[in-house]
């Protein structure tokens, strides 16, 4: 089984993933996810995985697709004035590799800014990318986002940290 990629490829993949969101290249971003990939933001610190725990995001590809298509819908009123976002990433760190499956896990502390009209909201946290190989591509099995203020009262968070 070939490994998912060398260190540099993995790090660049994580940086590329954030850039695609910031540039609203959502179709390309969507294609980075494995067919069974997930985009998960727990609501509490140390929250176990599983649908019986309420999360802020816990999107499979269908839910990601609904979000992406909705952003293009002219009747998405909350996007009458479009939101924009900016990820600022610390250097991703390769936490582990699984020789058997060829997968890898990267840890990336980040800041995330979301801006709409005259309001700019600042978030911070740690992103965990669980990457694997699908054919000749690197894909996301899981992107887990541990938000620093996950249990706080939050305004509308409309794009993708």
């Amino acid at each position, binding site marked *: 089984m070939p490994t998912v990629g060398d260190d540099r490829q993995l790090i660049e993949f994580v940086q590329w993933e954030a850039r695609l969101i910031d540039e609203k290249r959502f179709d390309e971003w969507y294609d980075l996810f494995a067919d069974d990939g997930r985009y998960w933001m727990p609501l509490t610190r140390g929250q176990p995985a599983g649908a019986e725990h309420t999360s802020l995001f816990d999107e499979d590809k269908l839910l990601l697709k609904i979000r992406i298509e909705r952003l293009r819908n002219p009747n998405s009123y909350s996007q009458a004035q479009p939101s924009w976002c900016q990820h600022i990433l610390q250097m991703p760190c390769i936490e582990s590799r699984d020789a058997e499956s060829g997968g890898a896990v990267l840890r990336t502390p980040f800041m995330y800014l979301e801006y709409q009209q005259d309001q700019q909201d600042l978030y911070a946290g740690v992103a965990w990318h669980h990457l694997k190989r699908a054919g000749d591509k690197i894909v996301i099995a899981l992107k887990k986002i541990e938000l620093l203020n996950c*249990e706080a*009262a939050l305004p509308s968070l409309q794009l993708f940290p």
Partner: protein
Amino acid sequence: MSDYRSSAAAIRALVRDDAVHRDVYLSPALFDLEMERLWRSAWVYIGHDSQVPNVGDFLSVNIARQPLLLLRGSDGVLRVLLNRCAHKGSRLVGASSGNCGRLLRCSYHGWTYTLDGTLRTVPIKSGYADTRFAESEAAKGLTNIEHVANYRGFVFIRLSRSGASFEEYFGDSLSSIDNLADRSPVGRLEVAGAPLRYLHNSNWKMFIENLNDTMHPMVAHESSAGTARQLWKDQPADAPKPMVIEQFLPFVSNYEFFDKMGVKIYDNGHSYTGVNFSIHSSYSAIPEYAAQMAAAYGAERAQAILGESRHNTVYYPSLTVKGAIQTIRVVRPMAVDRTLIESFTLRLVGAPTALLARSATYNRVINSPTSVVGHDDLYCYRAIQEGLAADGNEWVSLHRNYSEREKESGLPGIHNGTSEASMRGQFRAWLAAMTAGETGA
């Protein structure tokens, strides 16, 4: 601007039978009065008893600007105390929840209290010899809120000394809480995990009105639920629907669906939509659960419990309940244009995990600050908050399905689902509370 504090007549002039003046959403002075009058005379939801199961467990909550503690005493009794040291006024408990042990201890001078609020120790008590301390407010310890009701685990308080009893205030609307609790085979609920906490930059009444507004989903949620429908439309009719599709699709049902759903109105601002059926009626069955319920209640009673499919029940002004999907939303007004909505997922004790997964999924997809449904709702509330600044028309219309007959026969009872009767009922309750005991022109 009118002087609402000194003039009940000025407040009365804000509420017509079929319209309200914009000031009810915009005036900081009215917001202050709401906190003093409406939110103190109402029975307000404080928390669920499953959140404080053990001796010393507490929740720290602000209601009507009062710092409160919901606390499980050494005798197992739930009490609500003012979170204020009897000495110099320091907030006693800083965390939003936790366990304080057998005593509450002030962080400043170390005064301690037993869990019923009695002052237990004061360092170097001899310093108070020959003073009037023993007769003072301080010696009385922590103030207990007198009016506390625990209804099937849902704990409500009334801050004002006088007012309607719990049963008078809610009446038969409590049947929605019954139906929610009865959905557990053992009749018990537990709060599961943390609440989703969504900050709304809008007046609290816009949220509470919207819960039984059935004319908005097909418009405001066309972009989210409509997109889900669009993505699903090429699937064969009998294809098993993913849970989120099952939950999204009914939001874009047509006007006839929502009209036939029906709305039931109670006194004091309470109401529920989904008298006949609702957006929750067509979820796929969980056979193991149905069998459990039949075993626990008997087939007929189990069917009656699960046959109810109420949409939203509004326990005016602080709580909304979705029995059919086991989520509740709690309204915490913070300022005239700032409201915190906390959405809790409930576990039906004894029921299969699949139900909890369904509730947690629904809560996330619909009620989270990340929800594409919530985004469009909040956009509309904020649009009203800003649009109402427009001079020229100072009135908000609540005319839909109003008739003079409603005035004569009263609101309580069943109305067509798209009627604005629930909002008219809320403003009747609002006006009564805001002008109670007030005289003057």
